[in-house]
């Protein structure tokens, strides 16, 4: 089954744009998520990334990334709730635990964990959109003149991952099809077999790369394949970053979890939040003109 994060060519703005422009736009959104602590702004970044992904046709990637991100966020909330005992609002006193010591679960610790988890989830959504919408071939082509060997390694790995995944699926099937009296297979022999097979596969893929001329001189000329959407994405990235910096200076990032929960919701925060959400519409392509 094809991963929802696998790049799929579509006529969307993010797919058509040069990798630099798409990375700048999605990178600006992710940067805001890490730059801010206010969960309202971080949630706005998540909404913008999800909107951008949906408009680019990567709704499946957004959904799966969001699910994975929420699971991770729940884990962070639980760990933070158990490990951090700060906060005024004690929800549960769980007594003495062997490793943790005295465990008091506070609403503030859970909220702080939720803010951290939200940031992780938003980063995953942004990365999921990047993975599904930005052509890795074009990224590697852009990187090749700058770091030829690294690009070669990245190419080899990017090809070997799906090949190894297919090999692993086949080996699992073969293990299930063994007769009941055949020697049983644990995970270790299967992993060894997969590793040995992967090395053979790596040799084959590397041989193909050699034959494509990868072992020769790396072209030094940089290629710029522009798209009419590049300017839009660069402007959006610059605007989002500028507004985020200005908002930070004006106090839009007011958030503290301890000792009691305080979330800034003044006009600078609302303005930054609104603009960030609106930036999710940038990949909207629209229909042909009448």
């Amino acid at each position, binding site marked *: *089954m*094809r991963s*929802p994060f*696998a*790049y*799929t*060519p579509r006529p969307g703005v993010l797919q058509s744009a040069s990798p630099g422009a798409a990375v700048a736009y999605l990178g600006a959104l992710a940067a805001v998520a890490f730059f801010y602590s206010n969960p309202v702004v971080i949630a706005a970044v998540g909404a913008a990334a999800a909107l951008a992904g949906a408009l680019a046709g990567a709704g*499946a990637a957004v959904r799966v990334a969001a699910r994975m991100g929420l699971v991770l966020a729940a884990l962070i909330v639980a760990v933070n709730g158990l490990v951090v005992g700060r906060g005024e609002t004690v929800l549960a006193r769980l007594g003495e635990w062997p490793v943790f010591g005295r465990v008091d679960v506070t609403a503030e610790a859970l909220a702080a964990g939720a803010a951290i988890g939200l940031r992780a989830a938003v980063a995953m959504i942004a990365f999921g959109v990047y993975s599904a919408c930005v*052509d*890795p*071939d*074009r990224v590697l*082509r852009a990187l090749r003149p700058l770091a030829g060997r690294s690009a070669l390694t990245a*190419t*080899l790995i*990017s*090809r070997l991952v*799906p*090949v190894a995944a*297919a090999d692993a699926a*086949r*080996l699992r*099937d*073969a293990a*299930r*099809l*063994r*007769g*009941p*009296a*055949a*020697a049983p*297979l644990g995970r270790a*022999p*299967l992993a*060894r*077999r997969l590793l040995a*097979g992967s090395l053979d*596969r790596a040799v*084959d*893929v*590397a*041989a*193909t*790369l*050699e*034959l*494509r*001329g*990868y*072992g*020769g*001189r790396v*072209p030094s*000329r940089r*290629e710029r*394949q522009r798209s009419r959407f590049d300017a839009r994405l660069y402007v959006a990235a610059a605007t989002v970053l500028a507004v985020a910096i200005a908002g930070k200076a004006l106090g839009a990032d007011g958030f503290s979890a301890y000792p009691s929960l305080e979330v800034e919701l003044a006009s600078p925060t609302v303005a930054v939040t609104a603009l960030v959400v609106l930036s999710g519409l940038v990949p909207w392509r629209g229909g042909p003109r009448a």
Partner: protein
Amino acid sequence: MPEVVAPVRATPALAVEGLTYAYPNSARAALREVSLQVGAGEFALLAGRSACGKSTLLRAACGLVPNFYGGEVAGAVRVAGVDAIEAGPAEVAGAVGYVAQDPETQVVSTTVAAEIGLPLEMRGEGPGPRARAVEEVALALAIPHLLERTVDTLSGGELQRVALAAALATRPSLVLLDEPTSQLDPVAGDELIWLLRRLNEEWGVAILLAEHRLERCLAAADRVVAMDAGAVAFDGRPTDFLAWAHTTDPALETPAAKLFSLAGISPLPTGVREARRTLEATHPLEAQTASAEAHEKARPDVPPQDTLHERAQPPGLPGFGRSSELRPGGVRRAGQSAALRTSDLWVELSAGEARRDVLREVELTIHRGERVALMGRNGAGKSTLLRAAAGLIDPVRGRIEAPGGIALLTQTPGDYLVRERVGDELPGEAGLAALRAVGLEDAVDSDPRDLSGGERQRLALAITLAGRTDGEAVPGLVALDEPTRGMDRARRGELVGAIESLAGRGAGIVVATHDVEFAAEFAERAILLGDGRVIADGPAAEILSGGWYFATEVARILDLAGVVTPAQGATALRERGTP
């Protein structure tokens, strides 16, 4: 040795002189004193049994041997005048294209367009010339519709074409292909060979093609180079090769040549057209009815035509796809229990982001002791049917059951071999019984890696059988998925023996295969799948003589109902006699 026919021009596309090579840590030389030239614009076929050195020679011709694989080498290899051993694969990449057997490891980019353009990019070509070259090679190979696809959504046949396109993108003077049709269905395989011939004629590209299924490509070749134990055993015209194979190595004979030699007709034909022309002169083919009668007399297992069930009909006609209760030859298998039963079977799989029905409304019964070939184009649903029978996939609707149990051997036998001693894979009495079932009881202490390809395949089959055999009993159904990939005729014969032995002991046998000649050898019944539905089901001799692509070479030559093997064809021709 007959003389080389093709004119060798001033600079040959490939010149190999006294090449001897051994892989690292190998005592035996893979190539021994090999000398040959492939002229510019020549189409040469590389023949020989498994492990005779064909692949190694191709690797040497593109510089991978010894530069990439290491080992010891002596002699010289020149590609378009460039010393490939000295220069290495990256330097000769502009002059030679290479397409290997497994298309999975031959693509390194995400999209088809990027894959085809990569060699040009590596040569420093700009976007403009690159786009034009990609477009032209895509048009030449009829794949422009694939350019924007990602490589992980392509079928095996499409992937093989993309690999060929990438090899041709730099307009090389020589293209090397290592069994490129081994994973393709007969339709895609034939298309690929004629595509190569067209490129050879129109672009002047020299082709060196290694193949086991010689009947598929002999007619397209200018010349044949046969190898044996790392050395060139024959080098000459295809017709001379057939005469040489008949006397020296019959395993390399094509079905058409075998038909003619058994019937005592000469000259031996390189392909269907040549054979038909010869027969038009010696055995006029108009009298089909008389001939069919003659052949039926020659085949005691096939009853007269009027008792055979209907030939393959288009979908929707009465009785279509519902003939599985009929025993091949039209006789019901009274008293034999079912080995596989499906009822209104629908299986759905994901294809990219969408899901599609891979099997639709399949109704089948396969009985114990029956030998069945399951055929159809790539993606027709053959493997899916076997995987569903083994419980690896759940149907979305309907039922599939194998009442007596199933042993399924998937396409890569190596996946089953994990340990370093055969006895460790199959311990105890039950393990020994499974080894006995495939004739490998003497190999208990061997390392699986030391076994031949055919023995490894039988060992993998024993692993699937272990514990499912009880004394002399065998599972109700033994299923094999594409077992003859990359297999020479001699090893195929071993496999036919193993299949017959298991069927003789009561196992129903179903083999998913693209290999029509193999199907004709082992199967008594053939089922043809098309787009997930059963589109033909009946006696193998009928199905394999009732079409064009899914027909044996003998059937294509004689066009006689039920005549599929050289022996049957020769009998039919002898019955008719020489005018």
